[in-house]
């Protein structure tokens, strides 16, 4: 390479090539081509990589598992009525066109469950008792049978059953709620004042908490409400998203002489509850730690937090505390549309709460209701010293049906809530006793024998408005020592096993072409089975099977249920409220509750029947029942024109 040192300005590589040119032409040529080839390969492969990355890798399984409760894609196989074998048949492939008649749609409207005269309803809001009246507010769309234009509907009742509609209480007319007057709760102050805190969605699309109070607290009907002029009183704190801040609870008064309340939020898919303190309901301080947080549960909506007496006999004011008191924390999970609760201990010193059993924490343990149920809210009824729980029951049919029939959604019959001192793990929910005022005639059946694989009709007259209380005794057939080991609800009532299913068939027709089984299924039946020394644990499941509730293909038909604790000295018992298109089922005094929507096409009006059934293979059932016809509650507008 003589002379290269002289060429200061040249690029050495090229210079070297130039120098090499004469001596090694063939090699240089091949080297150069290699360079070109290599670059081309590299560029082409990069291009291919870029194009490949644009390919869709949508993870179907992950999204489907998130489970939208409104998803009508029924994946549960349905079986033949005789219960031989289940056949798998997604209802989407059914080819009969389906037409709802006015008769079918009109029948769906309930007789004694709260629902507005028309249009859409969702979350119950601000329930309270004041000057002789129970008040219910609710998310309401005044214009359509689908969600939208949300305002606060309002109704009053003397007895939680007979409701009278009042004008809307809160409308969206201020910048701090112009985009939504959403859910909230009432706090009753010792002096008789009522404060209402509710979530507003502002003109800038931020969720905030607003204060409202009755225009005239001496008005028993609380017709008019005033919004605090300097709303909002709480805005999303740093670190909390503007769409993750809603549904404030009733406040409780503590030894620090402050009112404390909580509301749900989330951080990185962990559901949590923020804590605020106030003395005047206008100025609030945020606690630096959460009341509680559970990873992986997503946004917590409609948080509810209240004390229960471990003695289990009366409800407690929201401010109650002390020995003999546990606290319930409940959240509605936005991701799965399910309501979860957990019982635990409230550490009032630092406003934190921990569950009694971390495996049954909020969002991963027990549910208030295993059916179609969401956005529940409780309040302390100082009139009768009980804690009363409301829950929103959405429709499971299609929106075209909702629009045609002109309404959507119900509230449950209000339920009392007590701590179950026998198990220590569950709450007990039970319809408020005032429902008994609707009872008309009754029928009683004692120890009706139902053999395996049989159906026994119950002749009670009309079967669409009923209060059913039943007890079941099991009679083991054949030899002992059957080990069954089935758990859960199975694919429905068609799936037979040794010790279940058995129960009742509600909203059924004579031909049993439409029916809704409500049943128990035992995993084992310990009768001192002695072949092994290992304990045969019996688990009992309580279930509602909607899969044959209707022939219509465009309604959701699922099997709902859960295990229910049954103590040794207890008989299996259930209570069922049947009210047209809603069935509320309670097992073991309310340890497990299932709300269900049914939309039959044939088992309606006079064609609806009630049956007992036993689809187990190895047991007889003896059922004792008392069944009442229930009257309508005649829910209607408040009779302002009548003289009081």
């Amino acid at each position: 390479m003589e002379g290269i040192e002289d060429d200061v300005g040249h690029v050495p590589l090229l210079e070297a090539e130039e120098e090499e040119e004469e001596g090694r032409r063939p090699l240089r040529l091949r080297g150069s081509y290699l360079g070109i080839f290599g670059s081309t390969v590299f560029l082409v492969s990069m291009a291919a990589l870029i194009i490949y990355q644009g390919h869709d890798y949508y993870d179907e399984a992950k999204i489907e598992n998130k489970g939208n409760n409104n998803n009508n894609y029924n994946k549960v196989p349905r079986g033949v009525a005789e219960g031989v074998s289940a056949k798998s048949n997604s209802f989407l492939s059914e080819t009969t066109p389906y037409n709802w008649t006015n008769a079918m749609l009109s029948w769906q409207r309930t007789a004694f469950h709260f629902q507005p005269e028309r249009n859409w309803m969702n979350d119950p809001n601000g329930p309270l008792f004041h000057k002789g009246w129970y008040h219910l507010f609710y998310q309401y769309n005044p214009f359509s049978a689908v969600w939208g234009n949300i305002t606060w509907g309002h109704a009053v009742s003397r007895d939680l059953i007979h409701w009278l509609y009042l004008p809307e209480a809160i409308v969206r007319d201020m910048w701090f709620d112009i985009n939504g007057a959403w859910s909230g709760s009432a706090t009753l102050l010792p002096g008789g004042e009522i404060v209402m805190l509710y979530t507003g969605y502002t003109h800038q699309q931020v969720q905030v908490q607003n204060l409202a109070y009755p225009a005239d607290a001496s008005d028993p009907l609380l017709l008019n409400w005033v919004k605090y002029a300097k709303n909002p009183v709480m805005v999303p704190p740093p670190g909390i998203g503007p769409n993750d801040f809603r549904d404030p609870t009733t406040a409780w008064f503590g030894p620090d002489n402050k009112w404390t309340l909580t509301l749900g939020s989330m951080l990185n898919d962990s559901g949590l509850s923020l804590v605020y303190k106030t003395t005047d309901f206008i100025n609030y301080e945020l606690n630096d730690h959460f009341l509680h947080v559970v990873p992986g549960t997503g946004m917590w909506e409609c948080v509810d937090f209240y004390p229960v007496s471990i003695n289990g006999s009366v409800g407690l004011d929201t401010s109650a505390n002390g020995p003999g008191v546990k606290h319930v924390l409940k959240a509605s999970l936005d991701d799965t549309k399910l309501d979860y609760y957990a019982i635990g201990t409230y550490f009032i010193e630092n406003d934190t709460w921990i569950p009694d059993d971390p495996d049954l924490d909020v969002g991963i343990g027990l549910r208030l209701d295993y059916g179609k149920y969401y956005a529940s809210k409780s309040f302390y009824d100082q009139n009768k010293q009980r804690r009363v729980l409301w829950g929103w029951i959405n429709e499971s049919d299609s929106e075209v049906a909702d629009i045609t029939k002109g309404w959507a959604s119900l509230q449950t019959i209000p339920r009392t809530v007590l701590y179950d001192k026998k198990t220590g793990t569950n709450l007990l929910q039970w319809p408020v006793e005032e429902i008994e005022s609707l009872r008309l005639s009754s029928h009683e059946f004692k120890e009706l024998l139902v053999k395996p694989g049989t159906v026994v009709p119950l002749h009670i007259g009309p079967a669409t408005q009923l209060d059913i209380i039943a007890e079941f005794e099991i009679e083991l057939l054949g030899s002992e020592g059957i080990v069954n080991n089935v758990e859960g609800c199975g694919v429905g009532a068609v799936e037979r096993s040794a010790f279940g299913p058995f129960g009742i068939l509600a909203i059924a027709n004579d031909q049993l072409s439409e029916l809704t089984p409500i049943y128990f299924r035992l995993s084992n039946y310990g009768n001192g089975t002695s072949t092994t020394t290992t304990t045969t644990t019996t688990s009992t499941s309580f279930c509602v099977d909607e899969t044959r509730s209707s022939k219509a293909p465009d309604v959701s038909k699922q099997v709902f249920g859960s295990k229910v604790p049954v103590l040794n000295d207890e008989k299996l018992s259930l209570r069922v409220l049947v009210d047209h298109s809603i069935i509320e089922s309670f097992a073991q005094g309310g340890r497990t509750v299932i709300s269900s929507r049914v939309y039959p096409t044939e088992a309606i009006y006079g064609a609806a029947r009630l049956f007992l059934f036993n689809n187990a293979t190895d047991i007889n059932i003896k059922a004792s029942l008392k069944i009442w016809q229930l009257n309508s509650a005649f829910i209607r507008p408040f009779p302002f024109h009548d003289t009081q």
Partner: protein
Amino acid sequence: MANLKTTTTLFFVLFLIAMTSLPSITLCDENLIESTCRKTPNFNLCVQSLKAFPGSASADVRGLGLIMVKVMQSKANDAINKIRELQRSGPSPALTSCASKYNAIVVGDIPEANEAFSKGMPKFAENGANDAANEATFCENGFNGRSPLTQQNNAMRDVAAITAAIARQLL
């Protein structure tokens, strides 16, 4: 010799350009439309539908949801127009049933989804979009396999499914 030298230089320079711009080629193209559409059942349809709307490039996820609702509206209109056309030449129960289903989509599902996206309540947008997909499927099923609306029903269903998936991302 000079030719080969310049060609080699050219390739080398291209190579360098590729190396330095590679990160931006793979990452910058990963814009919000594409990352959102990845999490829907139909990436290509999602991207194509969104990119056809002005303003989609600068929209947030909620804005993309609102655009998809507009796309749903347009597919619903297509179906309704087709139904009317078919009804002129021969009404049938299946067509009448479809008409009422698409009416529900236009009167119920679409306004619900629109308001839900605008007002930050995406769960109701998911409900409305899922219902619209169902209504289209029921309309299709009503023809016992000989549907004259397959193209419109499929379009409606696919677009609604994408909209529901976008709503879910906002939960």
